[in-house]
């Protein structure tokens, strides 16, 4: 019985393959950090990409996209090697990885080889300052910045204290916020800390006794969030809200540290339990569930969108017959579409100027979108603190 159904399945698969063999096959390369320090994001990236390719291939029959993926181990040298290998194996474009220090050299190599490179995991300004014609990205530092700025305006907060790790992405976001909030007349204080720090009480105490802000914003990573919120729970500074950047408003943080996360706000594109309104988002959620039997997360969504954008541009270029003659970059630049992450367009240096994230609040195990107002799925608890 089992064998027969297996046979039937493989027969079906063979037929589908035969059918798709008629369509034009387009080879795309990808490098992602499946191991090493960025592995967790890399794995989500991989999942989002696979779902996007599957949905795209099923949605039409003229073009079939085939992706080969290489693990870059979170290391720049490996990523450069991967891009070279992928292009020499015939990839016409590269779906990029995670982390500016890895995406930077990898996209340089890709540019040198004349191939389009698109990423959703590198926010450094340096990348778009290079002015490469073949480089595109979905998200950027400014988007995270706008997400939090919007909330500060909506809450009419008078003062913000930023606690930021001196690592690349957190510092970039912190510096950007410091500048833009100050311009809006908000009193901002920046506290940069070395990533090796574990006791945050001296910093939080400075905030409590000197800054006296309405909001605390953490630009850091998971272990730092835990340390900072703990210190705040002990010292109880008279603030109204604690907010933070990536990897904070995610279900896992609440599962692991339930008594620290209540009412904490972080950047997120989606509420939890997942609730998407647009058609594409719904297909993505269903496809993701079918393939990996779990809910979509933020990194997977980013990767899904960047892959979809590239697939569509590839199809357009192939239809126009310009794929081989370098027309792909122009087609990507013509992109103008909505997505689960909002509208996607690219400027002259490949940045997506519209990128903005919502802010989500941990409320009893759920994540409720609380800002911007037009996206919100619930009311913000404000003042709302973990204690």
């Amino acid at each position: 019985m089992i064998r027969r159904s297996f046979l039937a399945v493989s027969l079906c698969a063979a037929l589908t393959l035969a059918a798709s063999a008629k369509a034009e096959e387009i080879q795309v390369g990808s490098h992602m950090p499946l191991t090493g320090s960025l592995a967790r994001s890399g794995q989500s990236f991989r999942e989002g990409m696979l779902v996007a390719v599957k949905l795209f291939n099923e949605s039409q029959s003229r073009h079939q996209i085939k992706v080969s993926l290489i693990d870059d181990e979170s290391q720049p040298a490996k990523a450069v090697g991967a891009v070279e290998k992928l292009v020499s194996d015939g990839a016409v474009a590269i779906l990029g990885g995670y982390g500016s220090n890895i995406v930077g050299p990898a996209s340089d190599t890709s540019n040198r080889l004349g191939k389009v490179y698109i990423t959703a995991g590198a926010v450094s300004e340096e990348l778009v300052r290079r002015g490469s014609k073949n480089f595109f990205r979905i998200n950027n530092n400014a988007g995270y910045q706008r997400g939090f700025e919007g909330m500060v305006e909506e809450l009419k907060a008078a003062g913000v204290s930023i606690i930021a790790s001196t690592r690349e992405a957190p510092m970039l976001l912190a510096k950007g916020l410091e500048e833009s909030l100050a311009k809006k007349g908000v009193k901002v204080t920046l506290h940069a800390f070395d990533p090796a720090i574990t006791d945050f009480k001296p910093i939080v105490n400075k905030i409590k006794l000197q800054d006296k802000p309405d909001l605390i914003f953490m630009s850091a990573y998971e272990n730092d969030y835990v340390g900072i919120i703990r210190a705040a729970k002990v010292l109880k500074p008279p603030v109204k809200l604690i907010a933070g950047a990536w990897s904070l408003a995610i279900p896992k943080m609440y599962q692991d540290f339930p008594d620290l996360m209540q009412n904490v706000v972080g950047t997120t594109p989606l509420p939890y339990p997942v609730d998407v309104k647009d058609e594409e988002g719904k297909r993505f959620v269903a496809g993701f569930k079918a393939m990996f039997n779990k809910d979509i997360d933020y990194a997977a969504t980013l990767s899904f969108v960047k892959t979809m954008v590239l697939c569509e541009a590839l199809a357009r270029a192939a239809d126009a017959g310009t794929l081989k003659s370098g027309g792909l970059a122009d087609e990507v630049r013509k992109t103008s579409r909505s997505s689960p992450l909002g509208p996607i367009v690219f400027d002259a240096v490949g940045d997506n100027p519209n990128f903005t994230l919502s802010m989500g609040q941990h409320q009893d195990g759920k994540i409720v979108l609380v800002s911007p107002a037009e996206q919100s799925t619930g009311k913000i608890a404000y003042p709302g603190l973990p204690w």
Partner: protein
Amino acid sequence: MLELSQQAIFSGLLVGSVYALVALGIALTFGAMKIINLAHGELVLLAAYMAYFIESRTGWNPYAAIPLAFAVTGVVSVAVYLLIDRIREHRELNSLILTFAIGIVLTNAILLIFASDVRSTGSPFLQDAISFHTVYAMKSELTAFFLSLAVMAALWWWLKASWYGRAVRAVSSNRDAAMLMGVDPRRVELAAFLVAGVLASVAGVALFTMSVVQPALGPALTVKAFIVTVLAGVGSIPGVFCAALLLGVTEAMTVTLASSALQELVGMVLFLLVLFFMPNGLFGARARRG
């Protein structure tokens, strides 16, 4: 400003007491054998993960994990000693590289077993705040502080009063003479490593209750402990404790008076200055120049 400094000093003392717990193990084996165990940070981390294992499986207080943690760190510590004991030439430097290699193995073993997620205690009691007038702490930090004091006292007594302890001191001051007196230095060194394992188990559990652990933390713990050992100078248990508290307070004051980005820098510079200009450490007795 006064209130800020009070809190910084208080926080620094509490953090320093855990530095002391980590450093005592390194100082003990270093004093006894002139061997720096670069895998000691990983031993501590191993104990912290045992605490996580017990807490997440049973929901007990993490301190209940000390016996299990000791069983693990004790075995590993003794294994480290037995490996070091096989080194024949250039013992000082080769043991440094060997324990470094063992550290790499342990870090990756922890990564393989426990994955790279960040872990810390979920016990509401331990995370609870407690305040004295204007200064605040978590209960876990105060627990760790008093535990550290108790462990230090016990170690001090052990070295002073027990046969093994006195033998450790005898071997550390003159190995050949101790041998002539009928002390088997290998047995004594083994005992020192076993006790270092005990210290690591307590330190690891304490660390888990008051801070966040992840597999890559080991080398940072070792380095911090070594800084404390250098500040203290060789051969003084209270010296280690004082040096650790000093480091903790210095770090906290750096954050308060200057910038938190400079905290690690100040620790490292202090380390080098003492190394260069006070070769006996702040509280020690013997020279370390080559």
